[in-house]
């Protein structure tokens, strides 16, 4: 009981230290955006400029995770998180918490295009950032439109990061997947790389900014390629089943054997 109270107090103190540092990092990121906008955008292509800004955001995410280490260290396993693949890749992640957005920064991407929902796009500061980075709010634009934008970005070498559940599942089981990104993968014959995240269900909890102590685990599976003539729905369900099975193993819910 006493140890529990002590560790809770420690978490509160760490949160009090951490959150202002994250806020300061966010301000610094915005200043870096403005600097790049003033110095780079007049001379470079729009895509090159976005790539730089997305790189800045990736560093911001990694810095936040570094800050979070005393509360929520991250353990990586599975695929190679360090080497960027020369071809464009599509990463699909399960979505448990807001901190998943920081965890995306650990993926081996150079020019990440993140697909987000309306909720994220309407968040005051984050929403502005999303528009600034030319990330896509896929709830409010027709599929045909954002599919074309994804095709363009993939052709220019961008990697796509998507949370096919569309919303945070928290401690609930993995929700149904939206099929959009799988339709894009099937249309282009591209593989998708499933990435599992667990442990951060309450880091932070929905509707809160308090980072509960946790051990976050992130596992990258081997890329999954659509079979010839495989229907997008079937491909989506195949990847979802793989992800659920792997999550069950990670969370110790697999009782087989």
């Amino acid at each position: 009981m006493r140890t529990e109270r002590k560790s809770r107090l420690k978490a509160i103190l760490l949160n009090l230290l951490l959150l202002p540092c994250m806020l300061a990092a966010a301000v610094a990121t915005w200043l870096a955006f403005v600097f790049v906008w003033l110095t780079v955008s007049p001379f470079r292509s729009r895509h090159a400029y976005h790539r730089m800004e997305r790189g800045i955001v990736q560093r911001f995410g990694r810095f936040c995770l570094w800050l979070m280490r005393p509360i929520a260290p991250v353990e990586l396993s599975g695929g190679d998180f360090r080497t960027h693949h020369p071809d464009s890749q599509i990463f699909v992640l399960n979505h448990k918490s807001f901190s998943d957005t920081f965890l995306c920064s650990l993926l081996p991407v150079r020019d990440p295009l993140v697909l987000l929902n309306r909720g994220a796009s309407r968040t005051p500061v984050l929403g502005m950032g999303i528009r600034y980075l030319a990330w896509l709010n896929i709830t409010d634009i027709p599929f045909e439109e954002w599919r074309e934008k994804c095709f363009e970005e993939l052709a220019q070498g961008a990697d796509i990061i998507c949370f096919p559940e569309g919303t945070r599942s928290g401690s609930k089981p993995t929700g149904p997947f939206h099929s959009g990104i799988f339709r894009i993968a099937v249309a282009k014959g591209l593989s998708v790389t499933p990435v599992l995240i667990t442990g951060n269900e309450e880091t932070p909890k929905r509707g809160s900014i308090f980072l509960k102590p946790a051990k976050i685990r992130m596992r990258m599976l081997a890329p999954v390629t659509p079979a010839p003539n495989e229907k997008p729905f079937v491909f989506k369900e195949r990847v979802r089943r793989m992800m659920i099975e792997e999550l069950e193993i990670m969370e110790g819910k697999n009782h087989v054997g």
Partner: protein
Amino acid sequence: MNNEIVERVNQIFNETFEIPREKLLPESKLFDDLGLDSLDAVDLVVALKEECGIDLRKDPRIRKIVTMADVYELVDCVLKEKAG
């Protein structure tokens, strides 16, 4: 409910989405239980047009569909309307 329609609709689901027949129960929810989304629903409308000759694209009743039973009922209703 007409068994023939249930069988036809189940066949369309099985062929279009490869959903096993044992999962196609009247109470199965299209989005929560079977995993369909709005884009898959468009594929369903196309398949229903091809297989049953009914066009549900502009039918407002399609928005109210939640379960497989709703699909059976709508297809039955539209086929009856078509037959006059």
